[in-house]
């Protein structure tokens, strides 16, 4: 029984990290925009949702064009979704935020909430109010390919440990350490791979390129950056495009992972990702990643050990606790790093 429990705990780690990786991808968009504009883009969850629909449409178009091989269509669909969402992100900034850049803090916030409602209702009315199934032919092979790791007999290690420890411990470690099968699906591997790849690219872009230096400069001091000849508007547009593209890739993975998508899918995801960004320290890029992973893990651990009913409470309880102890989030004070 204990062995099974341990195996399921490992599985929870895998599932929680997969969920957290997705939160992290979305959280990056919140944190980047905050870093550069000092505003919360509450329409970001909707950009994520548009990415879901973009991918399904792209797959449909590719399918009718005769392309069927998952290896080709899926990457193309992800890229299409990223471009689609980036377009919406850019438009969003142009329409709803640019005019309000100098306005009071609450103006762009209200505008963002309005934008979120508009986009959600737009999809509901123009596409469908019901659910859409992600094409099974694409998702099923990935989701159904599972590897089972398991049956590691760790009793020799256990014996070694026990031989050093005092006898009292033996009572606590009476059952044998055997790890039973842990499931890992190809889809989860893909989620980890894409998430890590995209995050790596983003870090490289921000830390190692001239463009990244420019982005960081705008984040530090917009006026000064423009005085030095940087195209501030263009760089802000780029930030929105990057964040939206990341959210779209998360959207594609979520819709494959869950199998279904709906017009209101961005609401909860957006809220959780925003929480992750705040948890990690809003404006801080590694913070968003850590925050996302933490929330994903905490939710799944809660579901497993306490009850699913408490899942959301835990995520937000952690947020309150962290903000109480560290008001600027886990990595919040490294202001120099923000973008």
């Amino acid at each position: 029984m204990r062995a099974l429990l341990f195996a399921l705990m490992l599985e929870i780690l895998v599932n929680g990290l997969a969920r957290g990786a997705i939160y992290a991808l979305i959280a990056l968009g919140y944190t980047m925009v905050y870093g550069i504009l000092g505003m919360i883009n509450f329409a970001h969850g909707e950009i994520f949702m548009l990415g879901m629909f973009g991918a399904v449409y792209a797959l449909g178009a590719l399918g009718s064009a005769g392309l069927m091989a998952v290896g080709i269509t899926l990457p193309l669909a992800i890229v299409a979704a990223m471009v689609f969402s980036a377009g919406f992100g850019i438009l969003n900034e142009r329409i709803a935020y640019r005019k309000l850049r100098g306005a009071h803090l609450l103006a762009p916030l209200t505008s963002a909430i309005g934008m979120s409602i508009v986009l959600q209702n737009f999809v509901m009315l123009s596409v469908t109010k019901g659910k859409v199934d992600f094409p099974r032919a694409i998702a099923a092979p990935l989701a159904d390919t599972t590897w089972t790791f398991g049956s590691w007999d760790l009793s020799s290690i256990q014996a070694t440990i026990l031989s050093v420890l005092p006898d009292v411990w033996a009572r606590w470690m009476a059952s044998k350490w055997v790890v039973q099968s842990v499931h890992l699906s190809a889809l989860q591997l893909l989620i980890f791979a894409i998430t890590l790849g995209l995050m790596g690219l983003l870090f490289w872009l921000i830390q190692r390129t001239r463009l990244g230096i420019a982005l960081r400069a705008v984040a530090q001091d917009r006026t000064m950056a423009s005085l030095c000849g940087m195209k501030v508007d263009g760089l802000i547009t780029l930030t929105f495009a990057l964040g939206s593209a990341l959210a779209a890739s998360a959207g594609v993975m979520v819709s494959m992972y869950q199998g279904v998508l709906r017009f209101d899918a961005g609401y909860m995801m957006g809220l959780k990702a925003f929480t992750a960004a705040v948890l990690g320290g809003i404006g801080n890029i590694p913070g968003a990643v850590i925050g996302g992973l933490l929330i994903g893990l905490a939710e799944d651990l809660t579901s497993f050990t306490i009850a699913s009913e408490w899942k959301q409470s835990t995520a937000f309880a952690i947020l309150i606790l962290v903000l109480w102890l560290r008001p600027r989030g886990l990595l919040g004070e490294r202001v120099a790093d923000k973008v």
Partner: protein
Amino acid sequence: MKPFRQILTVAFAAGALLGCQKKEETLKIGLAGVQTGPDGEIGTAPIRGSQLAIDEWNAKGGVLGMKIEAVTRDDEGKANQAVAVAQELVAAGVKAVVGHFNSGCSLPASEVYHQAGIVQITPASTNPQVTERGFKQTFRMCGRDDQQGDVSAKFAFDSLKVTQVAVIHNKTAYGQGIGEVFRKTFEAKTGKVTLFDGLASEEMDFRATISAIQKSGAQAVYWGGMYNQGGPFYNQLRQAGFKGAFLGGDGIYDNELIKTVGAKADSLFITFGPDFFHSEVAKPFLAAFKKKFNQEASGYTIYGYDAANTLLQAIQKAQSTDADRISEALRSQSWKGLMGDAEFDQKGDLKKANFVIWTIRAGAFAVR
């Protein structure tokens, strides 16, 4: 504030009535239920069924010499919106309401109809409380959760021979209610409910819950919720290697479920009314529905159709639009519908609820 609001409502209703009398006299029937949001698709089905019934009556000349006018309202599946919709319908001067869909909506809305003295027939709200509050003019055209949870639990224990079941619900009046009934019956049969847990109704990632289900040693899962979550939940259970049976109530009986789980879904058992898709009496209805809405009728369409038909027949019999007279007429006899004979008891429930076990066979729902 409150008396003022009541006066306003009365004034508004009176105004609406006066307004009606000037024109040709019509009988207004409210069609209320969820049409948008997660339950939008399944909730639209009974409304369309009722609409078809009203159209047919109008083609025959209406009822009591009046044309019937359907006043359709969307409650979005939310309790507060349901109350607002109920007040709107009362103000619009409807004489009876077919609705709402969700139990969580029917419960608060029926208070409004009760106060206003309006007959309400719900085509789909199965929570026991709907008819347990002594409202004389509240009826339902469907069974109760204590009936279908009961059928499901007995089926699991007696036919599937499972003794350990995990019950997962969607934290709504319907889902949690039906889950609790299942638990009660299953435990009374000496079965063990290894896990009883709920998830928010927008959650679509069930993997952590599934690990908890596997840990608990459950041989089968009972899902108290709707099809939109039920489909992904089922798929993820199978992906995690869970091979046991998946049981659910009428909330997952929708063609959209099959689209999500695929034609090959196995060990999926649903409680729903008897098979009318293959009955002779339903054929004209199915054809007419297809013609009007250009889609196949789904399970709940017929509930809406029968509810509206029964209501209009009762109005015809009562020769009145008075709520008490209609209620009296509804209870007075057995009504022939597409689903069979319907007879109401004192509470307003069907005397004979006919839940049977359905499963998916060859890409369609089929009676087991």
